[in-house]
């Protein structure tokens, strides 16, 4: 130790100080059947960290910092996620962790994370986070995804829109898991409020042949099928739905991919999309730059179908966190940084702010794929 100090003094070599680097963690599934949500977040986060560091880092209270990203792969497994979070909090002492997007992962880490309340921030998109915002010992939580219900909720708006389209009956086909039941609990009252009959059917994880249950649903003649909730099942459900005559699909999770693949057999495929990148790249310079940067960074095509999921714990959120740290004048006072995050509106790919509970509010799009692939996009900016 003495020798190291002497060397440093003699040759002017300053040992790397821990506070020169701000570690940010990310717990997302980058592979696995449910990786759709986490993969894009990871892609965007790597880009943001690289961009900030390449520009020389960022300054807080007169001192320069760089970012270090810790983003292992949870594979959608709660136990794996817990191991990773423990590593981030106990070994790496990360104060800012992004994710998870999956409710089952959040449920798996929540009891452990609660023990670190006040010591770090967990900024994730999981639907179940909504229910814990503002609860005692959950001050560490912020939710990085628009909430479905409520006056600004995209789900409320979409259900009201469905009513305007004349829908009288909607059949939900959801995976029998944590998020599936949360989705039912959110949407059943919304449909009831609008006077739309709401039927529900469930399937087990791992199901690929939905033809029986879809035929049963079709026999009930619903106006729209509301399937859930990830592309891993949506490709099979949407294809098989069209085969039994269910050609109007309405979703609140998932991507455009299954709709576009079945565009000739579908009448309507209505989906909440945080941003329709195909259109936005022509109208928003920041989106155009992001797409070009992405292609250069990963040396691959831009994943238009996955990109909307970059609205949660992704590219913008890293810049927003840096801005909040600068405003707070601290990189490690999590209470101050949270306060700063809650007070700013960040204008990046999205216009992002947090409401009084710590839930994200962003502008979003609703995309309607018509038969043959014609697309109509509606833009919404919540109040």
């Amino acid at each position, binding site marked *: 130790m003495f020798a190291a100090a002497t060397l440093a003094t003699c040759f002017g070599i300053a040992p790397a100080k821990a506070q020169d680097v701000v570690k940010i963690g990310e717990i997302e599934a980058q592979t696995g059947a449910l990786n759709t949500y986490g993969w894009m977040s990871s892609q965007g986060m790597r880009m943001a960290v690289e961009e900030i560091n390449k520009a020389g880092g960022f300054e807080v209270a007169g001192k320069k910092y760089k970012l270090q990203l810790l983003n292992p792969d949870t594979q959608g497994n709660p136990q794996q996620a817990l191991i990773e979070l423990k590593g981030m909090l106990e070994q790496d002492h990360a104060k800012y962790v992004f994710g998870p997007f999956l409710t089952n992962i959040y449920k798996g880490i929540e009891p452990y994370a609660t023990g670190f309340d006040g010591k770090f921030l967990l900024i994730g998109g999981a639907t179940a986070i909504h229910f814990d915002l503002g609860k005692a010992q959950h001050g560490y939580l912020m939710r990085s995804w628009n909430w479905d219900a409520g006056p600004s909720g995209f789900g409320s708006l979409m259900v009201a829109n469905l009513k305007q389209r004349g829908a009288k009956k909607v059949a939900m086909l959801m995976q029998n898991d944590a998020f599936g039941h949360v989705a039912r609990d959110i949407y059943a009252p919304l449909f009831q409020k609008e006077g739309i009959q709401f039927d529900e059917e469930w399937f*087990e994880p791992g199901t690929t*042949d939905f033809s029986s249950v879809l035929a049963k649903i079709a026999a009930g003649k619903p106006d729209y099928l509301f399937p859930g909730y990830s592309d891993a099942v949506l*490709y099979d459900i949407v294809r098989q739905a069209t085969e039994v005559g269910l050609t109007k699909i309405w979703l609140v999770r998932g991507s455009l991919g299954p709709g576009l693949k079945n565009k000739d057999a579908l009448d309507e495929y209505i989906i909440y999309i945080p941003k329709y990148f195909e259109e936005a790249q022509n109208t928003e310079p920041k989106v155009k730059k992001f797409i070009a940067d992405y292609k250069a960074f990963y040396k691959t095509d831009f994943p238009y179908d996955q990109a909307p999921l970059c609205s949660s714990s992704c590219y913008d959120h890293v810049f927003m966190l840096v801005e909040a740290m600068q405003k707070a004048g601290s990189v490690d006072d999590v209470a101050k940084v949270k306060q700063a995050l809650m007070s700013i509106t960040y204008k990046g790919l999205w216009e992002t702010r947090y409401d009084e509970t710590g839930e994200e509010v962003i502008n979003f799009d609703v995309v309607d794929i018509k038969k043959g692939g014609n697309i109509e996009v509606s833009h919404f900016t919540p109040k």
Partner: protein
Amino acid sequence: MLQLFVGQLLNGVIVGTLYGIIALGVTLTFGITGIVNFALGAFMAIGAYTSWYLTDVVGIAYPVAVPLAVLVVAVFGLLADQTLFRFTRNNLINGLIVSIGLISVIQSVLLMLWTTTPKNMHYILPGVLNLDLFIVPKMKGVVFLVLLAVILATYAALTRTWAGRAAYAFAQAPEAAKLMGVRTGFLQTGVVVYSTALAGLGGALYASLYSLEVSMGSSYILKGFEAAILAGIGTVMGSLMGGIVLGVTEAVGSIFFPQAYRDAYGLVFLVLILLFRPSGLFVRTR
């Protein structure tokens, strides 16, 4: 309601042939080598991923990709037999352990190659046949016909060719078959390879209907075993019928009961059958 019932009856028959092709592999392998090969589900996954890769990534036409995928799986089957199963013949426990280990190896390799992200093949034959009383997706119809033809051809080969009769003879009395000039080692290897090729065919056809993920074979091997036990181990046409009974039970059961428990319907039916016919539905009792 009638349309729904008839439609699901037919759907159950079609899905059941997929169970049947795996059941056929199970029954052939067990009958000739004494091995309970649980890895057939993993071989099915190899067939599925290979056909997807050849079709969607390499760009080979699907009708060409399917036999190529079957060939690839058959080669893997031969390798597995010569390096592993050859040493476990007629040893139920050792064969079982080796086959379970092989599942882990195959799934790990598939994971390394293509991750756990599901793969979706482009549509080979989109659209449905609407026959008033029921609707059949065209591709499902093609898959059914191919599988039915292969199972019938297998039955014909086993009953009408010398090799087939030799296999039957070996299954009934190995020593006597050996004394009559049957090359038993060659026969056993041939059956293991053929069984894996059948699983590969099932997988290659599966890929045209559903999304792929590495553990896809797990449920199919269980269904294959259920079908084989339901029919009675050792009956070729029984494997087909066992698969169909299982498929129909699941499909029709899902009309009247929740879909979430569809796997249970087949199992309940299996238990009921075994209570009354312990040797299986299609085995003649003396």
